């Protein structure tokens, strides 16, 4: 059974760093892109970036390039999203998801709520 499981909710202060994780199981982790999607409170879905764990090819949305870093450790089938210095405006739910052929996102993590206080 394919599963995508994310790390738990975090409460941080502005200026702190953070790295959240996303573990894939039940499929060949290196054969599929993993994407990160932001959902701010009461707002829609936004693509942040995607990574192909097979060769670590990473692509960012212009809105998020330089603001976050996406990485993956294929030895433990885990992708990561990290911030060097959080801002209050980073408060949101972050989803990771498996991106299959044709761009379909067929398996989603449960979401990680990040709350940043100023």
């Amino acid at each position: 059974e394919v599963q995508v499981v994310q790390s738990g909710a975090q409460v941080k202060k502005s200026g702190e760093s953070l790295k959240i994780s996303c573990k894939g199981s039940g499929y060949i982790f290196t054969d599929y892109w993993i994407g990160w999607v932001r959902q701010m409170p009461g707002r829609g879905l936004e693509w942040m970036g995607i990574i192909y764990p097979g060769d670590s090819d990473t692509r960012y949305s212009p809105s998020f390039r330089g603001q976050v870093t996406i990485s993956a450790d294929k030895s433990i089938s885990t992708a990561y999203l990290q911030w060097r210095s959080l801002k209050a405006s980073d408060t949101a739910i972050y989803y990771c998801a498996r991106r299959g052929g044709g761009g379909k996102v067929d398996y989603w993590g449960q979401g990680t709520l990040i709350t940043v206080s100023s």
Partner: protein
Amino acid sequence: QSALTQPASVSGSLGQSITISCTGTSSDVGTYNYVSWYQQHPGKAPKLMIHDVTNRPSGVSNRFSGSKSGNTASLTISGLQAEDEADYYCNSYSSSATLDVFGTGTKVTVL
């Protein structure tokens, strides 16, 4: 990377059919058959409902169907049920953007 345009809300009565539109451009919806639709209930992760414009994953009710004409893709929900009340998002590959593009989202209300 501009979001695809969806109506903010659509409503229908139990048992009726509704259609949600998703308007893009010739750089995305109009040229590529890589449109997918997602259902999101409050507090839950999105769920894939339709991919490649018309294809339904196994386990998704056949009351959900997708289509495309020109730069606009559509999701139709027939025989509307209470559990269909949710937010719906389209997504498309875009040749003019680094990544795929989501739609603005549509809140479906079952009357």
